[in-house]
């Protein structure tokens, strides 16, 4: 399965997606990219954020 792109140096994401990730507290490097050329898409970030939220709720 695809790996998070973090180790590849710069994580590829369109700039607004970069900002969205920051606003949602998502570390882009931990997101598995599904876009063309290993680019992290908006959907990837949103999906990651919703999973992260689910996890943190579950630990309460």
């Amino acid at each position: 399965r695809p790996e998070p792109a973090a180790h590849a140096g710069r994580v590829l994401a369109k700039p607004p997606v970069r900002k969205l990730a920051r606003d949602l507290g998502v570390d882009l490097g931990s997101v598995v990219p599904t876009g063309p050329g290993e680019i992290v898409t908006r959907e990837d970030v949103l999906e990651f954020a919703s999973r992260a939220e689910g996890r943190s709720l579950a630990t309460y």
Partner: protein
Amino acid sequence: MADTNGTEFDIVVLGGGSGGYATALRAAQLGLSVALIESGKVGGTCLHNGCIPTKALLHAAEVADTAREGAQFGVHTQLNGIDMAGVNAYKEGVISRLYKGLQGLVKSRKVTLIEGHGRLVAQDTIEVDGQQVKGKNIVLATGSYARSLPGLEIGGRVVTSDQALHLDYVPKSVVVLGGGVIGVEFASVWKSFGADVTVVEGLPHLVPAEDEALSKALERAFRKRGIAFSVGDRFAGVTQDDNGVHVTLESGKSFDAELLLVAVGRGPRTADLGYEQQGITLDRGFVIVDEKLHTGVGNIYAAGDIVPGLQLAHRGFAQGIFVAEQIAGLNPAPIVESGIPRVTYCEPEVASVGVTEAKAKELYGADSVETLEYNLGGNGKSQILATTGFVKLVRQKDGPVVGVHMIGSRVGELIGEGQLIVNWEAYPEDVAALVHAHPTQNEALGEAHLALAGKPLHAHN
């Protein structure tokens, strides 16, 4: 006045300037009931005594310069003089159209506008002319006033921007005390209108908050325009008589002029409004708030110039929107102060967003910062406009662009693009991949990013 006895609003906003009316408009949009208390005119400083009237003067100044310099473009133009009554009528016309529009907005969004002077008398209550206006939340947005220096009294030939905006003549000569945004803007206007202008700044540079490269370039440009200035020498005193003012600096240097404009910054309008009595923390008059603009007291928030930081209208808008959304439970992302664009509308214009080179080195370490200057000499449209200047980029090495700094005629409009780049954490490569329209000035931003990405097109390696 609207009769509000017995009503409790979701939000009561004190002050109808940029910060206050933005809060009110956004809150109303989100379905909250809002009272907006204003003792003067909705729109506040920015619309009536700040941004808008100064930019109207600056445009009239541009018109005058254009007519003065038409020959270099082959156009026989002539400047016969400045009709200050006409300039003021134009300026008032712009204000009144925008004011009408704003009043219409406030009304159509069903904001309850309460006219009068308000004071905070309880954590949930503002008193206006004896009437108690209660809110589940209170937003303080009482704005700012033109400050002076200890012992420097405003009056007669010693004026602030408030009086300067209503002059019905062009002074023959002016000393401008303060080389910040407001000071250099007035200096620019008056020079274009034909006055002899001297700017006096105590710090080592004009526009001292900007990246030093911009300050130096503005100084060069002012020198070329014949705007005199003195930096790094503090104001000592002024005397005035029927003939004019006599200004002395600490070094003993002195200047005579018809007028002294005091433009040494703006102080928060927070005295005698009951803020401290309710437990709100003030620091040199500014309201201290947390990241969410909450004062730490009850449900009281603050927005605009009374909050320490950049005193800009659009920061007020942003904070107002933020507070409204925060109260409505939308959990908005906090505003990053350095991401707010800054424009100084003198000629040439100065514009920036993000951090300066010096600040970046402080944040990331001197070895982790890379900068690039792209000269407008290589930019076709700037050549056509006969302007000089440059774009300076600051990036984190192998990281995003963290600062965009520009100087040149009309570059203020390029900051829209600059702010997306900085706030969206774009890499030079992201911008370099997009070809800019030829021949525009924004192409200079494109070229600068191409160069920073290691692939300059119209620039030497």
